[in-house]
């Protein structure tokens, strides 16, 4: 499962050779460890294009800068915030506030300010745009400017090197730039938690959500169920949720019980051996969580299977097995959760989709149908939870280094790894970080969305 190529092009003689040959040189990505600082270096907040002209400060940027620096009365994030940078200084992150841009012409000044510092963006640096959703109700010029950010951001992400990423926070109409989810998403994108998230724009639909008492353990006091938790991405999700303070119930089929017990003991949670396709799976999860831990707040639908075949050769069994596990079980469990009356304290449902469900994948008509289904389900389930401050969202992993992808033939695997802006496969913990963010209290304004963890995979937009 290790990416030998990545190690070779980053060390010793082979590093030099790769450089001379002009081979792609993916950078080792830094991942979050408990206690790491949010950003370990200067953060530049660019906010130009206020109402008084293209080069005047922008109020959203001022408000953000104040909070990030921790100046003023409110406790902030204690970042090293700069509004201008000397030409020789390295920058760790740039927040590009474009929320007030009302005409494509208004992009020029802030983008130029960003361009001026890009060469001094540190390895593993971050660019995060803050913009507003483009809708049909907007004036054409406003809509053009807002939609323009989308194309700009995705292109910029493809230009960044050295493990740097660019992502965007997109505020729906009326959502404040300091709304919990806007700040939660900004924090996620700035941090090493989003190491393998690149070129993504996440819409903040509302002001809902609450700030955690402690950003280090945002899930403190929350009880989470993670399905398919015995290995791979599910195990990483269990570990990450536990690290973020949650009490975790790990669920997997009885046959995976040995690995499941190991994870349960590692995260100091409880193991529930359960086939999620059972009629009463949802009730049994609830019963276990309520009985042992008093409540249930987060459900992560991670369990999934593949039964790949070209459609012409696909037996009905293979089709039905994948749909049963990957989507029908989730629908049935959600129904049980929603009707129970016990899933009402800012509940969170996070489902694992896949870039296959967005872009399609040859040989995976069944899998892609199920994963596309997950995306639709999340979108339609979110409104049902809104009354309780709840959300449903999906995370779509791209190429992740797991037991599953380790079985891909070597050459195909090497190519698949490089087909994204970060030129490498992600790790299970990268997916887990995105899940943990969407499960957090601060993400209450992210409703029915899909967050891709794919290093900006070249396929599937």
């Amino acid at each position, binding site marked *: 499962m290790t990416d030998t190529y990545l190690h070779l092009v980053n060390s010793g003689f082979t590093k030099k050779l790769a450089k001379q040959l002009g081979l792609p040189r993916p950078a080792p990505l830094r991942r979050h460890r408990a206690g790491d600082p949010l950003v370990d270096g200067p953060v530049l907040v660019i906010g130009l294009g206020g109402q008084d002209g293209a080069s005047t400060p922008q109020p959203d940027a001022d408000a953000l800068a104040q909070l990030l620096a921790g100046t003023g009365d409110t406790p902030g994030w204690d970042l090293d915030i700069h509004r201008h940078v000397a030409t020789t200084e390295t920058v760790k992150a740039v927040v590009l506030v474009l929320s007030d841009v009302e005409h494509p012409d208004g992009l020029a000044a802030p983008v130029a300010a960003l361009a001026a510092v890009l060469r001094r963006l540190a390895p593993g640096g971050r660019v995060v745009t803050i913009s507003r959703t483009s809708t049909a109700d907007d004036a054409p010029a406003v809509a053009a400017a807002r939609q323009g950010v989308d194309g700009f951001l995705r292109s910029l992400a493809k230009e960044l090197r050295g493990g740097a990423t660019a992502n965007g926070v997109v505020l729906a109409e009326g959502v404040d730039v300091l709304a919990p989810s806007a700040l939660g998403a900004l924090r996620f994108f700035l941090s090493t938690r989003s190491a393998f998230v690149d070129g993504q724009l996440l819409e903040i639909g509302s002001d809902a959500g609450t700030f955690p008492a402690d950003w280090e353990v945002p899930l403190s006091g929350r009880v989470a169920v993670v399905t398919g938790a015995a290995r791979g991405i599910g195990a990483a999700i269990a570990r990450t949720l536990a690290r973020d303070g949650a009490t975790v119930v790990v669920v997997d089929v*009885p*046959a*995976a*019980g*040995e690995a*499941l*017990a*190991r994870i*349960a*003991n590692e995260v*100091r*949670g*409880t*193991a*529930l*051996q*359960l*086939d999620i396709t*059972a009629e009463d799976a949802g009730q049994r999860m609830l019963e276990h969580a309520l*009985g*042992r*831990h*008093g409540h249930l707040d987060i459900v992560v639908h991670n369990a999934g299977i593949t039964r790949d075949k070209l459609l012409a050769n696909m037996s009905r069994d293979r089709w039905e097995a994948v749909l049963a596990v990957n989507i029908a079980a989730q629908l049935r469990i959600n129904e049980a959760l929603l009707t129970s009356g016990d899933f009402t304290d800012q509940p969170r449902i996070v489902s694992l989709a896949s870039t296959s469900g967005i872009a399609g994948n040859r040989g995976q008509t069944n899998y892609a149908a199920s994963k596309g289904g997950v995306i639709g389900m999340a979108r339609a389930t979110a409104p049902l939870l809104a009354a309780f401050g709840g959300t449903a969202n999906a995370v779509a992993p791209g190429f992740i280094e797991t037991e599953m992808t380790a079985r891909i033939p070597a050459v195909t695997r090497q190519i698949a790894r490089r087909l994204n802006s970060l030129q490498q496969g992600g790790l299970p913990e990268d997916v887990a970080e995105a899940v943990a963010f969407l499960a957090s209290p601060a993400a209450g304004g992210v409703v029915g969305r899909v967050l891709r963890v794919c290093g900006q995979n070249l396929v599937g937009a």
Partner: protein
Amino acid sequence: MPAARREPATPTRTPTRRAAVIGGNRLPFAKVGGPYRDSSNLDMLTAALDGLVARFGLQGERIGEVAAGAVLKHSRDFNLTREAVLSSALASETPAYDLQQACATGLEAVVGLSNKIRLGQLDSAIAGGVDSASDAPVAVSDGLRRALLTFARARSSRHRLAALAGVRPADLAPSAPTTAEPRTGLSMGEHQALTTAQWGITRAAQDEIALLSHQRLAAAYDAGFFDDLVTPYRGLVRDQNLRADTSAEKLAALRPVFGTHLPTPATMTAGNSTPLSDGASTVLLGSEEWAHAHALPVLAYVVDAEVAAVDFVHGKDGLLMAPAFAVPRLLARHGLTLADLDFLEIHEAFASTVLTTLAAWEDTAFGRERLGLDAAFGTVDRNRLNVNGSSLAAGHPFAATGGRLVATTAKLLAARTAETGRPARALISVCAAGGLGVTAILEAA
């Protein structure tokens, strides 16, 4: 003391406090030489404990005491249970002790710890048992052992040489453990063959018990009954001995292996006898307060237990017939009859062990002369007997069987009570080498 002389007491007499069965965990039982052949007793007991910890969220918890044992035990494993605790996710401050009572080890561990809980000595406890027929200790002969010990004590080369010179070629043969009774030299199977013949148990009746055991265990697995009782180990997900597809014809085709030189027809086959097995089991026990404080369920209570032994050496009773005496005494103490039991778990050492026990209880002469009753002790409703299969299908790692029985029974009781709203009651009976028998009553919460 004959059962009939006792005054009946109230059925649910409660001592100072009750000992609750909270749940259990075991490994799927494997055949000898199967997937656990390279696993030691310590490995398996640790795995069974860790599965229990995972199921009930006991990581880092200081349990009052853990008691477990193994029948086939290496001398280096003198502190097996404590070592397993130290290897597990439990708090290292959890005390432990080993015990051994042949095949009744696991049940006796439950009984002993329950009594400590009832007396207030413990708030929580884990009973367990483990056995590996694959990794059984093989000892050197007494002659070689003495020579080696003398050699080790010798101070000079001459004495060392002298010590080794005493070794005879015959001393070099290793002595492997057997199931032979030390006092009779007969294997357990041959002993049971005598009892089978004495009670006239037919081959067909034994095969029927075996078939039911497989069918019922398979059905219970299919229904998900073991989802929260068993944790897979080393790739084994269900009991390896379980044959869901066995049939009366297949069982009838097997060659008898025990009692082949008795004057009566030999009836005991590999199909209606338990195989040598590897595995481990654990049971979580606690006071009601402890269970409540830890938000853990109470499935059942351990009400009482009775042990018995028979004089098999002089042929007065069959080697495995002790429970036939223990159960009437136990039930009489509580004013109960067989009809008052919702479930009976009678360990299937052999199909005929169950049948000879039932036959003795139905026999008027046995009831009058041996049990001191006015008539036969009674008839067991077969629909209440080993309802989810037993050792013939699951296998029988000697010390692990008690834990399997207690956890299974407790779950059955809880389910029955949830269904009927009336506290259900069960009997557990385990026969053991040495003419021993341990029996217990469990009642639903």
